[in-house]
């Protein structure tokens, strides 16, 4: 019986709920070569998506307006600090509004365009272009006010075991950070690099696309991109990384 007790106690020992105090970007965990690729605008393949987004930003919509009309050439009148605050609470939607939804709303209201579906390639391109304008700006999501309930439900999702592997995001990204999972070092799983260019798929990946991947890794049924669940997860994750510099377009595996 003592043996059983000792076993149970030792099993419980190495389990701090949070293995980190200060957020550290996934960038710090990349091999030097990938860091260099991310830092060099000419080498960074995500810059291609930024350029595509820039073209869309300057392209007139149905009513002849383009984003430039309100936001200036190259987005010169967009405020990096405002971009870093997304998702924000929208009184109109009575809920969170992600940067992508904000862009889609603009297209609908100011360009008279039909809204695009969540994560449609053109929307990811525009989001990548806009978020790149705030590169280096510190993520700053305010969840002390009306966004709080979404932050709480995102946090609950983050701690919910899912799929055949029955693990939660929290296990890898809070508890076992800096330890090895086979050939990978576990990072804190922040969102500041997204949309990011992923070398495995050779393409840009939205944050919700990355979420679907995480679910697949755990052999779980993913939620839809743009779903209430993933938007809540985005609110939680962005706020969890408050203070980290936006890296869009980051380079990741």
């Amino acid at each position, binding site marked *: 019986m003592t043996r059983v007790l000792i076993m149970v106690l030792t*099993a419980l020992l190495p389990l701090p709920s949070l293995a980190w105090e200060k957020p550290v970007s996934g960038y710090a965990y990349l091999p030097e070569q990938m860091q260099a690729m991310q830092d060099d605008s000419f080498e960074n393949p995500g810059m291609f998506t930024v350029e595509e987004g820039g073209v869309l930003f300057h392209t007139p919509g149905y009513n002849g307006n383009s984003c430039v009309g309100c936001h200036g050439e190259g987005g010169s009148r967009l405020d990096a600090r405002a971009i870093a605050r997304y998702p924000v609470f929208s009184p109109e939607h009575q809920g969170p509004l992600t940067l992508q939804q904000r862009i889609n709303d603009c297209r609908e209201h100011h360009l008279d365009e039909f809204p695009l579906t969540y994560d449609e390639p053109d929307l990811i391109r525009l989001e990548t272009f806009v978020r790149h304008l705030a590169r280096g700006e510190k993520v700053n999501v305010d969840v002390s006010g009306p966004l709080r309930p979404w932050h709480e439900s995102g946090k609950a999702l983050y701690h919910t075991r899912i*799929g*055949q592997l*029955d693990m939660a995001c929290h296990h890898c990204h809070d508890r076992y950070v800096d330890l090895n*999972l*086979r050939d990978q070092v*576990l990072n804190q799983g922040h969102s500041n690099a997204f949309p990011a260019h992923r070398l495995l798929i050779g393409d840009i990946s939205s944050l919700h696309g990355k979420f679907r991947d995480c679910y697949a890794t755990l*052999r*779980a049924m993913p939620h839809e991109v743009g779903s209430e669940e993933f938007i809540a997860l985005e609110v939680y994750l962005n706020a969890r990384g408050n203070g980290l510099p936006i890296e869009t377009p980051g380079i990741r595996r």
Partner: protein
Amino acid sequence: MAAPLGAEEAYLPWRVENFAIEAPLGGLRGDAVRGRAIAASREKGNCIACHLMPIPEHPMHGTLAPPLFGAGARLSAGELRLRVVDEKVVNPETIMPAFYRDPGRYHRPHPEFATTILTAQEVEDVVAYLVTLK
């Protein structure tokens, strides 16, 4: 309640006593050589994703879980079986997947993975291998 597991195999119930499952699943007999391969395989056990094990031909082992050198000396076959079948019985907070848990209890299972992670035979193979780690 036993969940359907595809045509070939039904989920077999198991019983814990004193933090051990004494009876081999389905009365099956394990094979240590196969068990070692399952422990290394990414698709099957993938035990070395988390545990350091004496499987040197695979260079990268995880460091987040206790090394399994000597596991067969520390724990009996029945204790090892419980840890492979469902470590959550020992430690409800563990990250270690339950390799033989009722799939009806998964949360949001992907339809392609609505089975136990390992079959009963594979669990017994892994246990037979772990017993050799003296």
